[in-house]
């Protein structure tokens, strides 16, 4: 026993402390509790992994039977294997840095205790999700992170747009969760267990499905779940709106950890996908489409957080592409490096926003290079990493994915390369707009406090050096992948990144007017991209409006009022009518009651006599 349960228990304790006593505790105590609990989680994770080294086999801990129905046993079990180890360290490590950052970022907010309570609650559920040894416990974590995400997106609940964004995230996720739960039912029906180990063992007897079968259906339903949580087409719409939450939330939940849960889940259920190639192929298509599509939107966004949000969607698409073409380890590798550089991008953006007192529009920034040097340089590190320039971390992971895609289908590689170029372009566009040229706003920019810049520096180091951690080799025992070496492909992808950077430099630093001119020339295409392909509007018209209207006319005005209310009122009226008759018996004369009781007793005795019950 390594007492793995302690890892999520610390944040849960932090949540309870901050949530119940929060208002009565001084700020320093909340800081200590919130950051300390995550730190203890990290320490305990490291300690457990150290003692379990080298973790060739999965280490399972069974605590108690949670649900036991007929033959189905669902335990409260935690498990650690090499995949979990990566996730644990990413979640607790990045989580710790972001907690530290948040102590500075949220310092002046009224909801300080509530914020950290929610953040700790999120950590608890995320760690449960990661450590879960069966589908249902994973689902608990899955739902829990959704809940904390909802709470944190709507953290500033006085802002209408924030609560709307929270609702949207929750409802869209619900669609994905629906798919996930159906998949869980299917698994339980077909395997009689929900335990990962048992299910994967039972999988051995199943053939690889060439056409659509049960496993394909399971895979597709899991994909629906993953698409909801990881913001893939067609369920990505909630993620850009989720930027309404505080920036540390965007960094932690909507960039580094929660949104990667979908990728983690697909990697975790890889044995199922390997038996269902069609479903896996579908993962790749969805991922590639999302990567490309989101990248195009990102080109035209003016809100710095929106740019990074679409970049997150796009990068998640990359990860899906990776796992979809069978390179699970590459997908997880990218998940990790992405956690580093995307957390850094968001935290940097947060630092910029903090410096400009809440300003998020790129058009009202500029020239911040001198005012906020640490933020600038760390953001450059992150951008280089996301652009996939050697030797930054993003280079290694992105190349693994692209090369695997090439050997799967070359056209996927080419589309990926174009996407990589666009990614480099829009990220550097944001950097150049914010830090170069003249300052276009009217605030007084200043560098952020050390509690914010220190995590930035740490993450910058990870973004640059993180590629040296060879996750694919670490995951070799779980996901064996063929070694592909192709220097030419590497050169092409790096060249695409560099081209993107160069174009951005040309458009926004050398010839600042060029971008507007290009936008004017492209006309409707630019407007379409600027308006995100009108996807929200289309969804509104095709899904939201009919549902709302149907609820109002059918469910409320017909079913509720005319059927349910009417029947309830009818029952009440009938009861009243019967009562009117029966109240004659309730005369208030005790002796008449006694007579009725006597009558009843005599009747009961006679009935017993006839039934022969006296003996």
């Amino acid at each position, binding site marked *: 026993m390594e007492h793995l349960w302690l890892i999520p228990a610390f944040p849960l304790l932090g949540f309870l402390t901050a949530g119940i006593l929060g208002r009565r505790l001084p700020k320093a105590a909340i800081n200590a509790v919130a950051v300390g609990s995550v730190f203890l989680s990290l320490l305990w994770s490291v300690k457990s992994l150290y003692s379990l080294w080298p973790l060739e086999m999965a280490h399972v801990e069974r605590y108690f039977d949670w649900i036991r129905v007929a033959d189905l046993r669902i335990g409260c079990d935690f498990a650690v294997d090499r995949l979990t180890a990566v996730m644990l360290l990413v979640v607790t490590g990045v989580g710790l840095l972001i907690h530290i950052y948040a102590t500075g970022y949220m310092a002046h907010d009224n909801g300080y205790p509530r914020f950290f309570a929610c953040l700790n609650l999120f950590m608890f559920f995320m760690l449960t999700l990661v450590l879960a040894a069966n589908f249902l416990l994973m689902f608990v974590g899955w739902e829990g992170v959704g809940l904390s995400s909802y709470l944190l997106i709507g953290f500033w609940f006085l802002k209408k747009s924030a609560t709307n964004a929270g609702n949207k995230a929750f409802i869209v996720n619900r669609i994905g969760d629906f798919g996930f739960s159906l998949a869980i039912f299917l698994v339980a029906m077909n395997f009689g267990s929900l335990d990962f180990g048992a299910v994967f063992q039972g999988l051995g007897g199943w053939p690889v499905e060439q056409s659509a079968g049960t496993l394909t259906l399971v895979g597709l339903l899991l994909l629906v779940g993953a698409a909801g949580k990881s913001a893939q087409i067609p369920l990505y719409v909630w993620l850009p709106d989720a930027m309404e939450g505080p920036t540390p939330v965007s960094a932690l939940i909507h960039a580094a950890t929660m949104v990667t849960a979908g990728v983690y889940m697909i990697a975790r259920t890889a044995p199922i996908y390997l038996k269902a190639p069609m479903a896996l192929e579908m993962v790749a298509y969805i991922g590639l489409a999302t990567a490309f599509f989101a990248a195009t939107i990102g080109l035209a966004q003016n809100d710095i957080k929106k740019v990074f949000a679409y970049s997150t969607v796009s990068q998640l698409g990359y990860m899906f592409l990776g796992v979809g073409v069978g390179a699970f380890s590459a997908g997880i590798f990218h998940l990790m490096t992405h956690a580093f550089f995307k957390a850094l991008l968001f935290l940097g953006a947060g630092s910029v926003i903090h410096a400009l007192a809440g300003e998020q529009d790129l058009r009202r920034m500029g020239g911040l290079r001198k005012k906020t040097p640490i933020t600038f340089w760390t953001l450059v590190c992150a951008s280089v990493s996301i652009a996939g320039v050697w030797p930054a971390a993003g280079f290694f992971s992105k190349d693994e994915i692209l090369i695997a895609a090439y050997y799967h289908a070359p056209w996927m590689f080419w589309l990926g390369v174009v996407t990589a170029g666009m990614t480099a372009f829009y990220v550097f566009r944001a950097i150049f707009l914010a830090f170069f040229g003249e300052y276009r706003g009217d605030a007084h920019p200043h560098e952020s406090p050390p509690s914010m810049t220190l995590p930035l520096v740490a993450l910058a180091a990870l973004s640059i050096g993180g590629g040296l951690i060879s996750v694919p080799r670490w995951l070799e025992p779980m996901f064996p992948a063929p070694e592909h070496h192709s220097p030419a492909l590497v050169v092409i992808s790096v060249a695409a990144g560099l081209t993107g950077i160069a174009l951005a430099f040309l458009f926004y630093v050398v010839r600042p007017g060029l971008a507007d001119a290009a936008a004017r020339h492209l006309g409707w295409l630019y407007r379409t991209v600027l308006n995100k392909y009108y996807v929200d509007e289309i969804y509104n018209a095709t899904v939201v409006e009919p549902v709302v209207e149907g609820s109002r006319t059918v469910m409320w005005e017909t079913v509720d009022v005319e059927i349910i209310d009417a029947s309830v009122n009818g029952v009440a009226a009938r009861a009243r009518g019967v009562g009117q008759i029966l109240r004659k018996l309730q005369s208030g004369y005790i*002796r008449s009651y006694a*007579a009725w009781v*006597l009558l009843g*007793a*005599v009747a009961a*005795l*006679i009935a017993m*006599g006839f039934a022969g019950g*006296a*003996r």
Partner: protein
Amino acid sequence: MDAIVFLIFAGVAVVCAINVVVRVHPISSALSLIGVMGSLAVIYLLLGAQFIAAAQVFVYAGAIMVLFIFVIMLLNTGAEERSRGAWMARLAGTPLLMALLGILSFVIFWAFPRRIGVHFGAFTGGTVENIGRAIFTTYLLPFEITSILVLIAIVGAVTLGYKELD
């Protein structure tokens, strides 16, 4: 001997019980009821229930009925008045009571043939020791619940009494 004792005290019990019902003054009814209880105590002795016989006298006659008589004397109400509807109650009630008694007797004779007799001294289990053992082992929970019931009754009676004072 058994039969004589039984018949004497059964007769006393029935006569007293009739007296309870027909006497118009409550105190006569109460004293007749004490007569019933005393006769029953003797009959309990015949059935080998010494402790219950003593408890019958101690609790019923010695405590409960004293309370009744105390209240009757305290309120000092006279004989009850005849009220309207009395003959109707009698008209409807008497056949019902006859039916009840008839059915009960029928069931008793049917279920317990005459040959099952009662011999004085054939069963001597009703000692304090046996009953105490039963109460404090098998029936411990009911016993404890009963004690709570009594506590509640005390509190209730005191509360009602206080209200009366002010």
